């Protein structure tokens, strides 16, 4: 008789599917202020606990507490709030624009706005971020013209990318925003290379790479971390863990076993796990990592714990694979509400001012959209078809020249 254990294949499954009761009990959330803040030059061995804690500053009452809290200029916070609200208003509008057939595609970052916005405001103007499609807030926080975002989304005659790219795959060099692409993960190593170049040139600039928690499974993730660790690249590597990758929960990327911040330990790098819905925590963690980078202490991996409130994109219906009320169960709240509450607690903000701002920003987006509509939405206006043949190489070769002729322009 065979008394050996029968092997069985484990397939991770989320805690709740449509029709079931959502729970986030599996997400370990220490209290605000509970996780310590080591010196930026602490020894690696003394930072191995960080990936299992969580950098949180705002407590349930909207007070800034604990070692990661610092005196912050209320004006800075108000600007952050403004950019987050602006992002949300803008995205809601564009989502509707998709329904109206004005664009082929759109994606929202609802619930995750603090990450792109706070990091955009914390890093220097000449630093470079290597974005995912879920940090439109970076551009908005830096004042990138919303009308240009819409023109890109419309692929119209004023599209800064000349109709060559899918909507929201922006590129904005002057705003520290590297060219996006549809492939996930493949720019993570570019951030490391860019940072290595800055170090090679004895420059001061640092890089920030973004990746979704689902995408950490790509080889690119590991290769970027390896190079970052080996060459002590001045880079911040940010995992935005919004719990979902299209229909796939984070357990399929490894979340059943450990945190994404813990990946850092394997490379001898510090790994911060951060409340991604806490604007102040995002700022504090980013500052800490940026100081490390700027002082030749090398790379930091940051996991931002957040939640994808909307569907993956306009092509997605999340109620097909998760309970429709899952978003309201998310324990880290809404980044906009939390920062608003903090500012109000500080006496630096009010519901009235908030409503007024919201109205203003809605109007601003409306104006921008009107301007873009005037140029034309998808199908109504597009750049000259010559643009299709430009930019394959720096100088066109005979193939595109002949083909352009064959095409008739």
């Amino acid at each position, binding site marked *: 008789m065979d008394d050996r254990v029968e092997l069985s294949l484990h*397939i991770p499954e989320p805690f709740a599917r449509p029709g079931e009761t959502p729970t986030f009990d599996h997400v370990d959330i220490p209290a605000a202020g509970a996780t310590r803040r080591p010196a930026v030059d602490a020894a690696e061995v003394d930072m191995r606990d960080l990936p299992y804690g969580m950098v949180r500053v705002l407590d349930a009452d909207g007070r800034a507490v604990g070692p990661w809290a610092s005196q912050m200029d209320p004006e800075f916070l108000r600007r952050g709030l403004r950019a987050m609200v602006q992002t949300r208003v803008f995205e809601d509008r564009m989502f509707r624009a998709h329904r109206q057939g004005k664009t082929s595609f759109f994606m929202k970052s609802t619930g995750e706005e603090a990450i792109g916005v706070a990091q955009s405001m914390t890093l220097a103007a000449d630093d470079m971020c290597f974005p995912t499609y879920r940090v439109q807030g970076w551009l908005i926080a830096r004042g990138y013209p919303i009308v240009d975002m819409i023109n890109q989304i419309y692929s119209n005659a004023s599209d800064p990318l000349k109709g060559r790219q899918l909507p929201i795959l922006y590129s904005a060099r002057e705003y520290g925003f590297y060219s996006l692409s*549809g492939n996930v993960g493949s720019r993570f190593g570019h951030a490391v290379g860019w940072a290595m170049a800055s170090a090679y040139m004895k420059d001061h600039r640092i890089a920030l790479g973004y990746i979704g928690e689902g995408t950490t499974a790509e080889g690119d993730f590991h290769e970027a971390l390896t190079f970052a660790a080996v060459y002590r690249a001045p880079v911040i590597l940010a995992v935005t863990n919004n719990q979902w990758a299209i229909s796939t929960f984070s357990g399929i990327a490894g979340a059943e076993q450990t945190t994404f911040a813990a990946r850092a330990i394997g490379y001898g790098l510090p790994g911060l796990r951060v409340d991604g819905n806490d604007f102040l925590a995002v700022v504090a963690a980013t500052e800490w990592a940026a100081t490390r980078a700027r002082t030749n202490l090398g790379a930091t991996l940051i996991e931002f714990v957040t939640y994808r409130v909307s569907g993956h994109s306009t092509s997605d219906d999340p109620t097909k694979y998760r309970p429709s009320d899952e978003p309201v169960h998310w324990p880290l709240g809404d980044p906009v509400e939390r920062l608003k509450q903090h500012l109000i607690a500080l006496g630096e903000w009010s519901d009235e001012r908030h409503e007024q701002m919201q109205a203003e920003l809605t109007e601003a987006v409306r104006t921008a959209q009107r301007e873009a509509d005037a140029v034309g939405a998808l199908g109504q206006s597009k750049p000259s*078809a010559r643009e299709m043949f430009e930019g394959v190489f720096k100088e066109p070769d005979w193939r595109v020249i002949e083909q352009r002729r064959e095409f008739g322009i």
Partner: protein
Amino acid sequence: MAQMNMIQALNSALDAVLADDPKTLIFGEDVGYFGGVFRVTDGLQAKHGLTRCFDAPISEGGIIATAIGMGAYGLRPVVEIQFADYILPAFDQLVSEAARLRYRSNGEFWAPITVRSPYGGGIFGGQTHSQSPEAIFAHITGLKTVIPSNPYDAKGLLIASILEDDPVIFLEPKRLYNGPFDGHHDRKLRTWAGHASAEVPEGLYTVPLGKAAIVREGADVTLLAYGTMVHVGLAAIEESGIDAELIDLRSIVPLDIDAITASVTKTGRCVILHEASRFGGFGGELSALVQERCFYCLKNPIERVAGWDTPYPHAFEWDYFPGPARVIAALRRTMEA
């Protein structure tokens, strides 16, 4: 016999093989509970069980690598790569491992894997949801590449691919999932309903790899196509009034060279049609083969109609896409030249 669109036909194929062979399993990004972003695996997990059809990490290299390991063990994994554009991170696994395992181990190990992937344009997917990478697979010794053009073939070819003991890249023209698209993007959408090839039997049946289909017989010029382009080619022939013979290759490796040479020998003219960029595309190989084997029958130069030598441009989809007008022009040129 049921009416199915291509998604349903593919789903039916997978359902049938899962039922038939416990050594068959499916995995890939979002294919489990959700049933895939194009719904091809819809319902399979619920019906066949969690380990028969499950979600994979976003790691195309890891998906193909583990599939090869499973194949070496003795399973018959069918994996989905969400878009063919995203096969590239797994290219080394396909070329250096899947394609070479049998040869280098003298038959001790092999990789009976099927890699399904939606491919091609026409859905406003932009650069990285529209590409047609078949040429880079065709050049790799040890890989087979299959491209169906209708629901009946899709099911039969997919089952045949899964039953193959060699690795198969199975490219699904995503623009054909819901209907036979002929390139007239400005006309009313058609569905598969009522189309002869949408009559799809339940259960297992195969369409053999390496057998082309003569979609339309004709005397004057041979039009070689596969995938979406079969429908574009057919529309172009009808509109042009030229008596062209349309061949749907169905698989480019193995290639039905006999069907090709027989047709060109008869017509003396040849137009090759594909969506991928022209330079270095599979049309070059087809042109070379036809030229080598039918030189003395050729009345006029072989024409290639293909995507331009640019990346796939979002706003210019219909300028890039080799639609009926360009095919007609090529047919005319080859008749007149």
